[in-house]
């Protein structure tokens, strides 16, 4: 219990002293996870919607695989990305290992299935509602996807936020591909793992509270920007 109290105090101290390392680490966490989120959303939102409206032979199978991929173990993703990007791996010449870019790749792989799967679930409901209307208007596939994405944007935001939550709280994969290098690839979660290893629980917990606060702020910011949960606009 004392440790938790010390952690809260440490978090307050870190935030109010505007610790330069903390700011760097926090910005890097945001940079990596937000970039991963943007890329993953650009892939997953259209794909999930497409999957909801398109009928093809292996659709059921594709959906089952997609749902299973939601549970992709990050540490395995990290290991595979590591082996791909390692100097002795197929993409070694690019020299991307132990850079924020490698961390973004790993996070995109981890969160894309999650976002696509939630998107698909939401779009399936919406599609059954819109089906007759959109068909009778003689819309193209592309127009249908666009109409569904726009009208389902609130649910899609939830999908994206779930993806962001998984990305920013993830440690197994980015530890392997990023290497937790100070000032280069150290983010909040890997710093927490490091401080726990040093037995400095107060600092580790302080960083943990900063991470939670950051996730809350990002969620509030996105809600504010997209004006949800307000009278008359939702």
């Amino acid at each position: 219990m004392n440790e938790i109290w010390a952690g809260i105090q440490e978090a307050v101290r870190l935030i109010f002293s505007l610790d330069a390392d903390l700011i760097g680490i926090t910005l890097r966490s945001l940079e990596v996870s937000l970039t991963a989120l943007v890329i993953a959303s650009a892939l997953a939102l259209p794909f999930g919607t497409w999957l909801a409206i398109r009928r093809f032979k292996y659709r059921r199978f594709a959906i089952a695989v997609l749902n299973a991929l939601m549970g992709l173990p990050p540490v395995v993703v990290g290991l595979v990305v590591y082996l791909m990007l390692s100097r002795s791996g197929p993409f070694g010449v690019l020299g991307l290992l132990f850079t924020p870019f490698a961390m973004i790749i790993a996070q995109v792989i981890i969160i894309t299935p999650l976002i696509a799967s939630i998107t698909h679930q939401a779009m399936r409901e919406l599609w059954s509602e819109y089906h007759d209307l959109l068909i009778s208007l003689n819309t193209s596939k592309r127009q249908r996807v666009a109409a569904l994405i726009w009208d389902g944007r609130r649910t899609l935001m939830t999908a994206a936020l779930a993806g962001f939550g998984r990305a920013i709280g993830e440690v197994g994969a980015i530890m392997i591909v990023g290497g937790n290098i100070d000032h280069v690839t150290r983010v909040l979660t890997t710093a927490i793992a490091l401080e726990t290893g040093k037995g400095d629980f107060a600092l580790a917990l302080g960083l943990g509270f900063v991470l939670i606060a950051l996730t809350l702020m990002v969620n509030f910011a996105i809600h504010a920007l997209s004006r949800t949960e307000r009278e008359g606009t939702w």
Partner: protein
Amino acid sequence: MIRIVLAILMITGVAAKADTMRLAATTSFNNSGLSDALLPAFKVDTGINVQLLVVGTGQAIRLGQAGDVDAILVHSKAAEEAFVSADFGTHRREIMYNDFVLIGPSADPSRIKDAESAIEVLQLIAATEMTFVSRGDDSGTHKKELMLWSAAKLFPDFFGAWYKAVGAGMGASLNSASGLDAYIMADRASWLNFGNKGGLELLYSGDPMLFNQYAYIPVNSDKHVHVKSEAAQRLEQWLLSARAKNIINNYKINGEALFIFNGAP
């Protein structure tokens, strides 16, 4: 939204691109705090920025073999010699040493405090079957521990539930030992710098068998052309310099020296 992302990218993306090299070093080098004393001084002297990857000796050697780092700083002589003789590293340079110590609950139920040798310590722990935490991660410390068990003619594969191979770094293993009130072998530097000692204390040290040599090995650029051998060479020369010697020998926690320089210039 996009503007925010771009702004963040701008802020964080500008850094780096100076002269940098990558060094995979054992956890104790970083957990002890010595890396934070040495590497910034090296940067001041040479302008080279060392990106430190803190891993166990086994993983450091793997990173060196794959060419993902430019040099390694590790502590497991047999593995180092195999690494060099397979031409993954150019040569092995001894830099400094410290020693391993045996940590355990302050009540010392296995009575290892007055043991004559490290081997006797392990025999006492095994005979009383008191909980013992092993790194179990193929690190230098783990290899040393296995070597001591085999010198004591005891075989961890056949131990009961009291022997817990946690498969984690030094700090995480010390956390486990602290939680379990267990015996554990650690390097002195990591132990002194560890913040969560709980009911544990240093019970045994001093046997020459517990000697712990750290060596620096530049990765061979014949195997991996992209390796920054020039920077790696400058770091080697610097680590052997009087300035580095001074920093290493004077690095103390609570008045206790952690490492002793023994590099031959």
